[in-house]
């Protein structure tokens, strides 16, 4: 009998990790849904659900292939894996000991949550059809190429030596930058600047944050693609960075505003998780505490600048948390990576050049995401339009777009 290529422990861990990453997208839906007006609670959850559904199919058909099949000039793959042709259960893919098909689906769930993150920027005002079109276009023309650059063999940032363990550039910077571009292009909500937006149900937001934290163990520790010592390190640093993000955001907010808010705690957890994402396989727990600390403080301060100084209605603070947190985490990886974790080193371990490499990766991904997102949204705007009408926005998208009510419990 032929010996199986499968490593049962590694495969089991990637199976569980894929499920953990899947739950992050609906968790994000709840995180966001608690922050909007109650008239938009279902719409906000629906955005995450729809993105998860569309990208899951798009990824099988062509998204995975463009990201990971072959290489065209270091910038994109080809269509050899179209519809998962050649993506077999019976042989390993990039992760030795794990079926190629499982690894590919695990990657697809990253693509889904990345696109879903952006929906927070244009919450409460985007046409549903525009969301559908944007999801297909953005995941194809932004996510897949950036994913190829950083993670695929032959990708130009991969060859350049950029370190991104679980998606600081690929997931958080690409979506965070896209979010701020989208917020500007879609325009602010009708009442932006006139009345302070009040989250309608913070318990949803905390519930969403809790599930995001839970799922992030699959996101980061699963990115070791094996049940090994690197996964263990990623698990440990993910938890401590999230915890430090909570503490530093709450502390900064308490000092500046006089109250330690629950929302600050939830947002701080996500900021810490975002910050540690690129670093999870390269830094030790002490490094993770520093990253979590910086993520909480920088994202909190950045949020104030975006809202109050730049007056951009990034409705649910996607850029502040994912853009700033991702940039901080990616650059901090260049400082704090130590050889004892996984091999690659940063400035503190005698490799100052890694900081420059990280800055180049951040700048390249941010610039590409900004330009490509602008073009895609412009295209949607001139064809089917981006925004709902003002009356539709005022009455709320749950009723005007979906014909439902989140809280009609009894009649």
């Amino acid at each position, binding site marked *: 009998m032929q010996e199986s290529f499968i490593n049962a422990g590694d495969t089991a861990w990637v199976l569980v990790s894929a499920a953990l990453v899947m739950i992050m997208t609906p968790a994000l839906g709840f995180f966001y849904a608690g922050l909007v007006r109650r008239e938009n609670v279902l719409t906000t959850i629906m955005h995450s659900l729809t993105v998860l559904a569309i990208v899951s199919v798009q990824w099988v058909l062509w998204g995975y292939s463009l990201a990971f099949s072959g290489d065209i000039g270091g910038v994109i793959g080809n269509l050899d894996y179209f519809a998962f042709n050649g993506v077999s259960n019976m042989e390993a893919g990039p992760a030795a000991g794990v079926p190629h098909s499982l690894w590919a689906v695990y990657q697809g769930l990253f693509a889904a949550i990345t696109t879903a993150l952006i929906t927070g920027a244009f919450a409460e005002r985007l046409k549903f059809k525009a969301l559908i079109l944007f999801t297909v276009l953005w995941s194809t023309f932004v996510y897949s190429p950036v994913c190829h650059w950083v993670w695929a063999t032959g990708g130009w940032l991969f060859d350049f030596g950029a370190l991104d363990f679980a998606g600081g550039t690929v997931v958080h910077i690409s979506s965070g930058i896209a979010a701020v571009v989208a917020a500007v292009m879609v325009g602010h909500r009708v009442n932006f600047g006139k009345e302070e937006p009040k989250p309608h149900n913070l318990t949803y937001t905390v519930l969403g944050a809790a599930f995001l934290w839970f799922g992030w163990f699959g996101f980061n520790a699963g990115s070791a693609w094996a049940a090994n010592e690197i996964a263990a390190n990623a698990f440990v640093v993910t938890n401590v960075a999230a915890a430090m993000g909570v*503490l530093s955001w709450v*502390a900064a907010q*308490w000092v500046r505003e*006089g*109250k330690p808010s629950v929302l600050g705690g939830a947002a701080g957890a996500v900021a810490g998780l975002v910050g540690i994402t690129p670093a999870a396989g390269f830094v030790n*727990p*002490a490094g993770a505490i520093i990253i979590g*600390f910086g993520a909480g403080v920088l994202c909190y301060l950045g949020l104030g600048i975006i809202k109050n100084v730049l007056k951009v209605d990034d409705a649910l603070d996607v850029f502040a948390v994912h853009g700033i947190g991702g940039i901080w985490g990616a650059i901090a990886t260049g400082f704090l990576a130590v050889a004892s974790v996984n091999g690659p080193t940063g400035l503190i371990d005698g490799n100052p050049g890694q900081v420059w490499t990280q800055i180049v990766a951040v700048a390249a991904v941010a610039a590409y995401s900004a330009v490509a997102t602008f073009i895609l949204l412009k295209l949607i705007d001139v064809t089917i339009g981006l925004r709902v009408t003002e009356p539709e926005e005022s009455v709320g998208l749950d009723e005007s777009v979906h014909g439902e009510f989140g809280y009609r419990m*009894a009649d």
Partner: protein
Amino acid sequence: MIEFIALICFALVLVAMIAAPAQSRPVVRAESKPSPVLTRSATQSA
């Protein structure tokens, strides 16, 4: 070195939270008003 910086970060947030200003806004006890929808629902189920 890095462990020492991490320790300072942790100490900093703890000190900041403990030394943070007292509540800046007066606490006003709001009247407890049950939601009309929930009240109706509770009545029906009873």
